[in-house]
């Protein structure tokens, strides 16, 4: 359309210029002929010169016209292209674009350029906005990265992140301490070079887990740390990229040494309990079967069998009671009723209980002069249990003719009362003294002396230390005797109840 208009314009302009030139040449020639007349040669020369000039002029005009057409065609083509481009950005078209008057080509070119500039401006605006968004996202990502790193560094478990070649990408302080490396100097180094040979099992598991592409691998591994064998629960998780290819692994090592010890202790406890329960039960079932089968031939044997069954049933009951008491104290489920009680009265009561047993064995019980202030803030039944366990043990392991001495002492500096029971018994071997308060611990050499569950002293320890915040102690010399005792805090004098008035006689 535009091109056609330009061509029409060219034809009109060319025609007008050519006609005007020819008319001008003819008019000049007619004027000259009328003024000078009759001189034919002169006329012919002038006509030729004028015509040549006009033809040259007309050719020039035609060439200029043609050049103009081509130029206009090129500009139109550019304008069309720009216009086509601007269709994409038509939404950015400005409504208030300047309008060129008169020349349609210039207008259209101007429109196209304006639209293009508007489009580019909008694109630049968009890009600037995107750059700003990206900068915010980068800041956010850096913040989140810092946050995640702070979390990982704060984890007490060792955390190690490796790439697909088992090279270190990240590790927290706990990992550095465990494997003895400095993360800042170890980044991008193979993990195998960083951990010691003694921990090569970890490297093998890490590498194997990553290669097997297993989502998570869990294994308990043991390392020597600070000359102590530690157990770690090692969980290795593979890290996947967007194509679901393994691009690394994360290992978390949790120290389960204590848990393992507790597990072992529980197993040992269950094993001990089952053994200790089965032993009296074995006697009860065996003797019952013998009675039922008529293997007891006379009255005396029958009585003997029944007596064994009774004593073993009592033993079983004692065991169960002790186990339950210890378990209740350990789990904090025991009902404790603490109040101010007189230790003197408690000792006297328990001495009465044990006296007949001591007399049977011809053992003298001596009690040093009672103390003036004897009030303790304690659970009466539990402290009574402590005293009777210590007294009965002392009598049990003391040969006939020996003695058991009770001493009470107030330590005002420490604000506590100390009770000790010293016997002239068989004593305890030096290397076994530290174990006497352990559950089910019985001294082999002394087993012949008396029966026991191996729980009595442990119960004493639990009651004194866990319930009354006190302390137990022991000292012994084989063949000479032992001293067992405990300390508990004194009751405050304000809350202490007065000693009951003892009736004479």
């Amino acid at each position, binding site marked *: 359309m535009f091109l056609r208009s330009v061509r029409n314009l060219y034809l009109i302009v060319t025609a007008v210029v050519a006609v005007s030139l020819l008319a001008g040449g003819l008019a000049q020639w007619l004027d000259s002929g009328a003024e000078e007349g009759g001189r034919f040669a002169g006329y012919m020369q002038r006509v030729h010169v004028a015509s040549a000039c006009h033809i040259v002029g007309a050719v020039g005009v035609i060439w200029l016209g043609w050049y103009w057409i081509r130029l206009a065609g090129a500009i139109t083509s550019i304008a069309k292209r720009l216009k086509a481009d601007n269709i994409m950005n038509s939404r950015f078209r400005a409504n208030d674009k300047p309008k060129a008057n008169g020349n349609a080509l210039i207008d259209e070119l101007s429109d196209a350029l304006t639209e293009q500039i508007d489009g580019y401006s909008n694109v630049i605006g968009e890009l600037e906005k995107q750059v700003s968004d990206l900068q915010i996202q980068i800041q956010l990502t850096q913040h989140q990265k810092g946050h995640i790193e702070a979390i990982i560094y704060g984890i007490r478990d060792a955390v190690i992140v490796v790439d697909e070649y088992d090279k270190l990408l990240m590790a927290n302080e706990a990992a550095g301490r465990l494997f003895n490396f400095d993360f800042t100097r170890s980044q991008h180094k193979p993990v195998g070079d960083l951990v010691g040979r003694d921990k090569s099992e970890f490297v093998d598991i890490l590498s194997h887990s990553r290669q097997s592409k297993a989502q998570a691998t869990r294994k308990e591994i043991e390392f020597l740390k600070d000359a102590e064998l530690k157990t770690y629960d090692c969980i290795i998780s593979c890290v996947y990229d967007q194509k679901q290819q393994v691009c690394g692994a994360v290992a978390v090592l949790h120290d389960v040494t204590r848990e393992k010890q507790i597990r072992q202790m529980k197993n040992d406890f269950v*094993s001990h309990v*089952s*053994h200790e329960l*089965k*032993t009296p*039960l*074995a*006697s*009860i*079932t*065996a*003797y019952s*079967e*013998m009675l039922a*089968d008529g*293997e007891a*031939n006379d009255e005396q*044997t029958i009585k003997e069998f029944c007596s*064994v069954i009774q004593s*073993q049933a009592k033993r079983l009951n004692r065991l169960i009671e002790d186990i339950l008491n210890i378990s209740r104290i350990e789990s904090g489920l025991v009902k404790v009723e603490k109040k101010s009680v007189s230790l003197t009265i408690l000792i006297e009561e328990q001495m009465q209980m044990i006296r007949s047993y001591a007399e049977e064995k011809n053992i003298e019980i001596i009690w040093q002069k009672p103390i003036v202030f004897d009030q303790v803030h304690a659970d009466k039944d539990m402290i009574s249990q402590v005293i009777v366990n210590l007294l009965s043990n002392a009598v049990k392991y003391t040969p006939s003719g020996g003695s058991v001495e009770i001493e009470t002492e107030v330590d005002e500096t420490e604000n506590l009362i100390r009770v000790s029971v010293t016997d002239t018994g068989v004593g305890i071997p030096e290397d076994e003294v530290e174990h006497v308060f352990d559950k089910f611990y019985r001294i*082999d*050499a002394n*087993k*012949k002396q008396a029966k026991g569950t191996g729980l009595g002293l442990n119960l004493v320890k639990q009651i004194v230390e866990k319930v009354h915040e006190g302390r137990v102690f022991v000292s012994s010399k084989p063949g000479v005797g032992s001293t067992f005792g405990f300390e508990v805090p004194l009751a405050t004098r304000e809350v202490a109840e007065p000693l009951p008035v003892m009736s004479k006689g």
Partner: protein
Amino acid sequence: MSKKRVLIVDDEIHIVHVVAIKLRNNDYEVITAENGAEAFKLACSENPDIIVTDFQMPVMTGLQLIEKIRQCDQTKDIPVIMLTARSFAIEDQQKEDLQISQCLSKPFSPKELLENIEDILYHRAVISRQV
């Protein structure tokens, strides 16, 4: 025919007593020990036909006793029955290596113990006759 001699080893006096009564009532001769060390001496001196031993004992455990018995030429062929509350603690391989004929769990039946003793001694007698 002479009585078969059984060595009973246990630190629980009531167990020793009840097993001894059961065996004596069934025409066995019984000797007893309270621990492994004492039992080994008796095994060497008294040459029992069979040993019934507990596992957990002071001074020397039942397993240590059996190891010693198997190492000694004089006692290595004596059949052994383990009578224990810890039968779970003895692995099959250990039983095989130490040639433990039977492993009975506590609580146990004296009748069942007697039957086991009779079975083992009978099979040994058959084998020795064949040899």
